[in-house]
C-alpha cells in the first residue's frame, strides 16, 4: 500500500464483530474490512461519526478485544498470534489513552502510583529514578508535582486526561493509541497537548493513532487522516489534502458541520436523516440514505476502495469508497 518505507503498524482487512445482548443474540459488525498503515513517527488520525467503530478498531489493534478476521502487524510481528507473555512485552511499545480518562487511572491509586506502575512492571530504573520519570512525565503534560499525591477524583476532567497521557509516556513507547485524548480539554490546554504530541513525535519518534472528533486539532496534528462511517474507512488521505480537497460526500458533510467561533458565521449544517444501524447495515453504500450526491447504483452495490491519486489533482495515497470515483 505504501511506497517502500517499513511500516510500524499495518492493519489489513480487519473485521470486528460483537454479540449483542437481549433475547435474540445477534451479530453486530463494528469494523468492516479496514486496512491502514502507520509509519514510525507518523501521526495517523481517525475521525468519524459517533458509534462508527473508531474505539472498536483502536481496541482491536491493541488486542483488547478479539477481531473476527484480518491482520495486525506491529514491528513486523503479528499481534493476534502472540501469546500472553509476548503481548505483555509488546505493550511496552504500544501504549493507550482512552476516551474516558478514568479508565486509565485507578480510583484507589494516587497519580504517582499510577505513573510508576508500568515502570515497576517492566522493571525500569530504581525507585528514585521511577519517581523522577513520573515527575518528568507530569511536567511534560503541564501538571505540577502537587498532583502526584492526589487521587483521580480530586482532579478536574482536563487534569485527569493529562494524567492519563503522562501514564502512557513513562514506558517510552513507539506507538500511542489515543482515543479522543483532547476532547475534554479547553482550547488553551488542547493547544498545549497538540504541541506536546508534535514534540514527542519529533524528539522521541513516537507514532500516534489519534482518534478525535476535533477536526481543528486533527488538521494541526495528523500526517494522514482516515474517515470512518459505519465500520468502514470511507476516505483516507494526507491530512492537508483531506481538508482542502475532500473527495467523499460524508467527509464534506463532516467539514460543514464544524461550528465556527464567530456568531456572524452561518450555523453548522445538520446532516439529513439518521445514521444507519450497524446491526442491520443498509444495502449498497452505507451512506446512501443521507448522501446528497447519490446515484442509482448507490443503494444496491457497495462501493469498493479505490485509489484516486492523480484524479483531479490529488496526491498519492488518497483512497475513497464511493461510486462517484469508480469510473
Amino acid at each position: 500500500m505504501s511506497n517502500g518505507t517499513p511500516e510500524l503498524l499495518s492493519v489489513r482487512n480487519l473485521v470486528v464483530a460483537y454479540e449483542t445482548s437481549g433475547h435474540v443474540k445477534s451479530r453486530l459488525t463494528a469494523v468492516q474490512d479496514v486496512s491502514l498503515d502507520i509509519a514510525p513517527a507518523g501521526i495517523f488520525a481517525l475521525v468519524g461519526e459517533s458509534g462508527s467503530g473508531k474505539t472498536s478498531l483502536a481496541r482491536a489493534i491493541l488486542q483488547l478485544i478479539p477481531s473476527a478476521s484480518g491482520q495486525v502487524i506491529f514491528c513486523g510481528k503479528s499481534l493476534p498470534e502472540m501469546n500472553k507473555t509476548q503481548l505483555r512485552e509488546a505493550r511496552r511499545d504500544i501504549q493507550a489513552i482512552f476516551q474516558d480518562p478514568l479508565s486509565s487511572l485507578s480510583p484507589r491509586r494516587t497519580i504517582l502510583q499510577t505513573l510508576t506502575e508500568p515502570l515497576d512492571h517492566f522493571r525500569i530504573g530504581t525507585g528514585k529514578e521511577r519517581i523522577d520519570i513520573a515527575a518528568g512525565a507530569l511536567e511534560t503534560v503541564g501538571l505540577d508535582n502537587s498532583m502526584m499525591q492526589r487521587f483521580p477524583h480530586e482532579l478536574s476532567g482536563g487534569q485527569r486526561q493529562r494524567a492519563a497521557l503522562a501514564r502512557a509516556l513513562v514506558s517510552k513507547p513507539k506507538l500511542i493509541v489515543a482515543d479522543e485524548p483532547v476532547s475534554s480539554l479547553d482550547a488553551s490546554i488542547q493547544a498545549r497537548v497538540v504541541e506536546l504530541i508534535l514534540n514527542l513525535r519529533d524528539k522521541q519518534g513516537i507514532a500516534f493513532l489519534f482518534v478525535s472528533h476535533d477536526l481543528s486539532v486533527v488538521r494541526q496534528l495528523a500526517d494522514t487522516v482516515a474517515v470512518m462511517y459505519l465500520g468502514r474507512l470511507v476516505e483516507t488521505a494526507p491530512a492537508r489534502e483531506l481538508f482542502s480537497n475532500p473527495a467523499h460526500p460524508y467527509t464534506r458533510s463532516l467539514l460543514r458541520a464544524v461550528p465556527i467561533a464567530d456568531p456572524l458565521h452561518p450555523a453548522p449544517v445538520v446532516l439529513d436523516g439518521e445514521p444507519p444501524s450497524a446491526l442491520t447495515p443498509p444495502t449498497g453504500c452505507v451512506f446512501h440514505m443521507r448522501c446528497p450526491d447519490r446515484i442509482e447504483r448507490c443503494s444496491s452495490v457497495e462501493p469498493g476502495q479505490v485509489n484516486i491519486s492523480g484524479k483531479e489533482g490529488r496526491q498519492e495515497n488518497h483512497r475513497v469508497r464511493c461510486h462517484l470515483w469508480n469510473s
Partner: protein
Amino acid sequence: MTSQTPVDALSVRGLTVTIQQESQHLRVVDGISFNLRSGEVLALVGESGCGKTKTAEAIMGLVPRDSGVVQATSIRIGDTELAVMPEAAMRQIRGREISMIFQEPLTALDPVFSIGSQMSSVFRRHRKQSRTQARQSSLEMLASVGFPDTARVMRSYPHELSGGMRQRVMIGMAMACKPRVIIADEPTTALDVTTQAQVLARLTDLGRKTGTSILLITHDLGIVAQYCDRALVMSKGKIVEEAEVKQLFTRPAHPYTRSLLAAAAGIND
C-alpha cells in the same frame, strides 16, 4: 404587570465551593452570582480546572460532603430556594425541575441495568407513567437524540454503546421530564461534529419550545458562537465577564476573554 421582563429560571447568588486539600482550603468557586433567564442558552466557558464542573455540582447539590463545602446566599429555581434544601427534597427537584448532563457519561449510567430500564424508570418515577407508556416515551426520546435502532439501544448495557452513544442517552434522559433547567457539562465532547450539530440543535430547540433554560458548560468557542445566547466567562473560580454572545466576540472586555478568543483563533486557522 410590566411587559417583557425576562423571568429568571435560575438565580445564583454568592456561590462558593471550598475544597480541603492537604490542610489548605482552596476556593475553587469563589463567590459567583448570575442569572439564567427563562428559555435562554447560557454558556459557561473557561479553562480546564477553573471551577465549571464544581459550579454545576454545587447548584445540583451533588458536591460530595467529604470533598467540599458549598456556601451560597441563594440558589433559586423560580420561587424555590435550593440553598437550604434538605437532600430528600432536593432529590424531588433533581430530574424534574433541574437535571444535569455529565462530562463523563460512563460514570453517570449504572453499568448493571439496561439503557431501557434506566430510561423507563425516569419516566415512571417523575412522570408517573405506566410500564408500557414509559417504554414508549423512552423509544421516542432515543429517536429524538438521533438513534436509528432504538430497540437495540433499549436492550443494551452501557458498556455496549460507544462513548458518543452513551452521551446521547444521557442527554435524552436529562430532557425526559422537560425540566425547567438543564445543566449540560461539556455534553458533546464525545460526539463527532455531525452528531454534535444534531444533538445541540435538538437540545437548544427543546429549550426554545418548552421554555427549558440551558446552562451549557463548554470549552469550544465555536459552540458558544453558534448555539448560545449569552456567556459567562470563568477564570480561577470567578466570573470575569458576562455578555451577549455577539458582544463577547466583537468586544471582549476582559483580558482573559481576549486570551481565550486568541487561543481559539490559533486553533481554528
